[in-house]
């Protein structure tokens, strides 16, 4: 900043902060945190913190990936079911076929990237809304999950991961715990924070991040200046699918059992967390850190309600109000972002 124009002087710290997409989520997270810290005794204990961080972690990994995709102007409704599909592929290959867990994980990742690439390819080739394309993939995967699981195991679940080759080492990477004081914290929290930090860096500090904003903000403009729009979008779909694989792997190694109907409905939670985190439904604006905070709000509220001994039915009410509030706040902030320096 060498030659600051004198007309910029009036933009203080407040207006600089207020145009950040994640600021609304941050304020919301603080409010939820303070609220449950007061009403629920267990909320602030080490074990309590470990519980709501754990709940936020797997949701947060997906929310961050979905946020990138939404900033790129697309949705992925198959993201929820993908967490089950990848877990099932890994479990079937390891338990039923007898492959080493690491090899099963690798093949499962290839499967996820394939589905992600297919989603992206159909969307950019046909120009159809990703909402409908991924709704199709969502239903197809749901059917495959149940159908293949039943064919292979004659039931709707795959279990027995504990006795497979490589379970110890893979479990250590994806599903171990670490001690802070005397309290065990899930390793998934580390994955969540690491993934969010990486995504945030990619989004604002790299070429690919710049292209992500551009293809979501205005794909024809981006194409006209030479941005590879199709490749960017396909890579974003593949990123979301890969995040689904990461969460699926964490789940299968932690619980050692997977239900074929798992993951259904989660896709909306991911989108909700991303929107609470400041993503616009129309694309081109949002934040990876915001989505991680959105997931944190989700986790804190869901566990806070339990700690406060309320009926968990109230969670949905809270969620609805939170979402509406977030959309209104995003809308206002976006207008401010476009206007504040005029």
């Amino acid at each position, binding site marked *: 900043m*060498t*030659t600051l*124009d004198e*007309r*910029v002087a009036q*933009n203080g710290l407040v207006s600089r902060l207020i145009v950040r997409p994640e600021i609304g989520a941050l304020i919301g997270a603080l409010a939820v945190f303070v609220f449950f810290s007061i009403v629920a005794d267990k909320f602030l204990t080490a074990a309590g913190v470990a519980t709501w961080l754990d709940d936020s972690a797997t949701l947060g990994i997906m929310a961050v990936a979905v946020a990138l995709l939404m900033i790129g102007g697309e949705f992925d409704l198959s993201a929820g079911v993908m967490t089950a599909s990848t877990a099932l592929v890994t479990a079937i290959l390891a338990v039923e076929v007898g492959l080493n867990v690491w090899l099963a994980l690798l093949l499962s990742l290839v499967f996820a990237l394939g589905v992600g690439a297919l989603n992206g390819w159909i969307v950019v080739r046909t120009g159809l809304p990703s909402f409908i394309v991924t709704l199709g993939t969502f239903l197809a995967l749901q059917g495959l999950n149940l159908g293949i699981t039943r064919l292979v195991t004659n039931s709707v679940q795959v279990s027995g991961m504990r006795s497979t080759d490589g379970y110890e080492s893979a479990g250590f990477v994806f599903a171990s715990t670490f001690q802070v004081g005397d309290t065990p914290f899930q390793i998934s929290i580390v994955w969540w924070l690491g993934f969010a930090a990486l995504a945030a*860096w990619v989004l604002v*500090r*790299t*070429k690919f*991040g*710049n*292209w992500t*904003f*551009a293809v979501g*903000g*205005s794909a*024809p*403009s*981006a*194409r*006209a*200046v*030479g*941005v590879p729009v199709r490749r960017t979008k396909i890579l974003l779909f593949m990123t979301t699918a890969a995040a689904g694989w990461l969460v699926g792997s964490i789940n299968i190694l932690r619980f050692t059992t997977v239900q074929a109907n798992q993951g259904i409905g989660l896709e909306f939670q991911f989108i909700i967390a991303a929107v609470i985190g400041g993503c616009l439904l129309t694309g*081109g*604006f949002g934040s990876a850190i915001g989505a991680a905070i959105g997931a944190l709000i989700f986790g804190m509220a869901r566990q806070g309600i339990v700690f406060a001994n309320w009926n968990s039915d109230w969670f949905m009410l809270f969620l609805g109000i939170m979402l509406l509030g977030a959309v209104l706040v995003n809308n206002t902030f*976006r207008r401010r*972002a*476009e*206007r*504040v*320096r*005029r």
Partner: protein
Amino acid sequence: MSALIEVDGIGKNYGNVVALHDVSTVVNAGEVTCVLGDNGAGKSTLIKILAGVHQHDSGRFLVEGEEVRLGSPRDALDLGIATVYQDLAVVPLMSVWRNFFLGSEPTVGFGPFQRLDRRTGRETARKALADLGIDLRDVEQPVGTLSGGERQCVAIARAVHFGAKVLILDEPTAALGVKQAGLVLRHVAQARDRGLGVVLITHNPHHAYPVGSRFLVLKRGASLRSAEKKDITLEELTRQMAGGAELEALEHELREVSSP
């Protein structure tokens, strides 16, 4: 020296629709070639061929004396032909400097650690815009906060900065007020004086005449008039543009209608 761009008897069909037929013109360095015409005259088809969006079906398209066939906008950019479209020049929610460098971002570092050089980006964008006389308060502001004229100017500055030899402007003044249009035309003249070849597409002869060196009037996909500035007056250009003989016939009819 050969012209920057020369098209010779160029034509384009969409199925059995003849969109462009036997059109010829040249674009020289330091000159503005204006393409005028009513809606559906074939202006867009012509610039889409020049910009690499579509390919011509007949005739010859020469860039600096070499016959070419452009496969994509990227090919055109690589030959130094940059196009600024009326409505899709920029991404509104992105900051000015990010728009400026979109598709050609400056980076530091290698491999997975390659990242945007934000300081260079901001400084270069600010300087390039200032060089064209565009004084922005802050290059971090979203382009959506700029006026229509300023947005066009950002896109023009970008094309100039990235070494465009030919600048194609698609209706840059169409949606703008008088003052804004003036601003854009001033930058068109500036780009011309820097030695760029400019193709200015417009349907307003009053915008074309002051900056233009050569005028190509299209009608129904064919060339109606092609003239150097010294061979045509603004009145003549306006008359051609408005349909020439047809307009006189219309005026005549209207006079008959109004006199009882």
